[in-house]
């Protein structure tokens, strides 16, 4: 489809934008509107979870109890984890998927638009449910986001509310994932073969599969918590023949694929952005697809690396250690291919590219610490220490969250029709990239020196690095205000119009339609012409 035709469609459908708040947002069926709502929700949750993190870092600024009571501290770490994972990272990626997948595969919308609305609107209610527990007798859940029994079964009234909130999030994720799979498999424009799809679409296809496979398992695990607590079952009670480790097994069968749910779409974003700014096609397209698929497969057989210190049989520990090591092979393929894509490219470093490069470097650091944790004897030392905290924040903050920011800067001009402020984007980037390291790198040292995670007070020996880490935390938190400011500026105040092909080197269907992308994009399947796609030639 050429640009004129797209503009023409824009005119034809202009009056289709529903009038009024209720009709446009509450009754929404448009993938762009729903994508926007997901992204806004994620941003709000990012700040709610972020505020909790600021209190945590303030309490840990120096040894001794300053600001909060230990129990409240535990509530904060627990809710911070749940909110960031289920409220910020996951919805943000679903928002990106909603906006981009139909544009990238040439579909008119998501395959099941009304279900799409339901998937979104369940979420605000779920978070209402979970946040309300802060004010309940006995307080919110405080046993960590993993909710291990028996500790979690001692929660006050809020346990049932939290579990039902998790059920709601699960329902939402499953429906969202079904929608994404149906869109990708069924709504591609003619000529958009599976192996010509953009990598972002590929990674989401595989992520959606993971989601449908694991969210029900989490639902099962928390349902067993619920019945153990309220209906007298003995799933997790050894005296009744049950086992607390049963919970850990089921939870981590969900949990490890879940971390890939949070990182694979980021891989997808990075695989779009690096070729654009290196002005070269991605190096090894098919290996990227296969690597993603093998990571997804392997992610189902490594879960017990979270349980090395629980007394598993040695044979099991060895199996899970080797399987964990194996994941670094496809992960290495990905990192290698990103670097090879940049090799001898004519690169420029606009904000999305800066975030993408930082992603590659910092995610790799997180991968390496993961590798260290995956070694059984080493993990005996590191487990439950700040080293683990450092590891997963490298992969989740400078990994997943940076991936989201990359995507937002990359596509925001397409969504809003305006350029963001490059200058403030760069300031946001440099402040974030530096402070995130100040924040999390010292936590490696703290962990190796023996500081346990999830404690409000600590030995004075850990004082210095904690203070450094907290300072990094405050700077990182404050820098994110620039991000919001830049987004608000772009959407409401920016003057300069973004062209259809926002980035010189960008290829793919989304760059063939005007910016902002019209409310209804491809009412009829677009004709894909040679050279439009980033991967694979079109022969009609």
């Amino acid at each position: 489809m050429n640009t004129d035709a797209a503009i023409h469609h824009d005119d034809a459908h202009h009056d289709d934008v529903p009038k009024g708040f209720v009709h446009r947002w509450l009754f929404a069926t448009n993938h762009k509107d729903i994508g926007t709502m997901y992204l806004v929700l994620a941003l709000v949750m990012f700040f709610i979870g972020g505020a909790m993190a600021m209190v945590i870092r303030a309490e840990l600024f120096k040894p001794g109890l300053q600001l909060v009571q230990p129990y409240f501290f535990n509530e904060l770490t627990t809710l911070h984890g749940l909110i960031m994972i289920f409220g910020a990272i996951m919805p943000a990626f679903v928002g990106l998927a909603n906006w981009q997948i139909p544009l990238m595969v040439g579909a008119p919308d998501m395959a099941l638009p009304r279900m799409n609305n339901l998937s979104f609107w369940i979420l605000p209610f779920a978070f209402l449910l979970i946040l309300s527990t802060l004010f309940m007798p006995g307080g919110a859940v405080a046993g960590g986001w993993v909710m291990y029994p028996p500790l979690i079964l001692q929660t006050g009234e809020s346990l049932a509310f939290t579990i039902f909130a998790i059920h709601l999030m699960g329902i939402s994720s499953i429906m969202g994932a079904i929608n994404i799979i149906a869109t990708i498999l069924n709504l591609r424009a003619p000529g958009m073969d599976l192996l010509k799809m953009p990598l972002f679409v590929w990674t989401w296809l595989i992520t959606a599969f993971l989601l449908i496979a694991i969210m029900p398992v989490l639902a099962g695990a928390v349902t067993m918590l619920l019945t153990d607590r309220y209906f007298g079952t003995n799933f997790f009670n050894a005296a009744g023949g049950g086992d607390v480790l049963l919970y850990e097994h089921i939870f981590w069968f969900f949990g490890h694929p879940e971390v890939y749910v949070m990182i694979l779409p980021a891989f997808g974003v990075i695989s779009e952005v690096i070729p654009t700014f290196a002005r070269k096609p991605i190096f090894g397209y098919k290996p990227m697809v296969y690597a993603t698929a093998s990571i997804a497969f392997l992610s189902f057989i490594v879960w017990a690396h979270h349980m090395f210190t629980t007394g598993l049989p040695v044979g099991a520990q060895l199996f899970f250690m080797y399987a964990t090591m194996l994941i670094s092979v496809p992960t290495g393929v990905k990192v290698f291919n990103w670097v090879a894509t940049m090799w001898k490219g004519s690169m420029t470093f606009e904000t999305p590219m800066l975030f993408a490069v930082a992603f590659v470097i910092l995610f790799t650091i997180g991968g390496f610490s993961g590798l260290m944790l995956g070694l059984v004897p080493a993990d005996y030392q590191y487990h439950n220490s700040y080293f683990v905290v450092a590891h997963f924040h490298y992969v989740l903050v400078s990994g997943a969250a940076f991936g989201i920011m990359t995507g937002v800067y990359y596509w925001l001009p397409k969504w809003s029709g305006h350029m963001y402020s490059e200058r403030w984007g760069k300031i946001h980037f440099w402040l974030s990239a530096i402070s995130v390291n100040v924040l999390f790198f010292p936590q490696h040292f703290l962990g190796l020196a023996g500081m346990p995670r999830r404690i409000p007070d600590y030995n004075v020996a850990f004082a210095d690095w904690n203070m450094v880490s907290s300072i990094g935390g405050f700077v990182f938190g404050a820098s994110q205000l620039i991000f919001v400011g830049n987004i608000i500026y772009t959407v409401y105040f920016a003057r300069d119009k973004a062209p259809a092909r926002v980035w010189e080197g960008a290829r793919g269907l989304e760059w063939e339609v005007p910016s902002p992308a019209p409310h209804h994009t491809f009412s009829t399947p677009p004709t894909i012409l040679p050279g439009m796609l980033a991967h694979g030639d079109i022969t009609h």
Partner: protein
Amino acid sequence: MSQQAGAYYIPHGSRWPIIAAVGLFIFMWGAAHWLDGIEPEGPILLFTGLAIIIFMKFGWFGEVIRESQRGAFNAQVDVSFRMGMMWFIFSEVMFFGAFFGALFYSRGLQVPWLSGEGHGALTNYYLFRGYTGGWPTAGPDAIGGAFKTVPAWGEPLLNTLLLLSSSVTITIAHHALRDGHRRRMLVFLAATPILGALFLWFQAHEYIDAYTHLNLTLHSGIYGATFFLLTGFHGLHVTLGTIMLLVILYRTWRGDFSKEHHFAFEAVAWYWHFVDIVWLGLFLFVYIL
């Protein structure tokens, strides 16, 4: 909306999803209150939520049915619906997988370890000396007291036959629908929810028996937990499936389905086969072995 011929059907904005979200929220909110013993708010909220959900189902499905009869859906939309249903069933498989996993783990690993096998020797020696494991078990403390299990070759066997034949009847009904034999279709379709209801009747009877005569309860250690959660969730699915069958029976009788266009019929049939297959797993692993 203005659609070119052959284009994909994109529905207008709809109020049903947000009603569904509110209904679900109130339902869950009420359930949590009720569990925490906050009454009467709990039950009131729960049933209000349930009423909203039922109202929403009628409204939402009604709208889709009207659109479908207006011919708004082309073959591509049909494929989307089919994919939606298939992946939904896959998610259900994984949900049951969690409970089957719990059963295999506790029976195959946990209970033997508690009884001193393998690396569980010291646990057994210091904490649970004298516990010899085996299956069924209510654990070292025999929580819930001694109990007997439901014999596989009584009602469970009967229920297996009922569900298997219901899978046959719905398949015959489906073929009859495709061949245009209305009478045969109605008869066999009507037989299916009847078989489902009979299944539920016998299962209810089995539960009552378990509680009153066998002393097998939710509280009966790990055996009671896995037994009741597995069969209970399955029973819940049979209940939902039976309701779905009644709905498509009504719609068939009304003449909603044509030889070519009967996605709802097929979706329910798939669901029913899925419920059947889960039962076979239950019969084998929960009752026989």
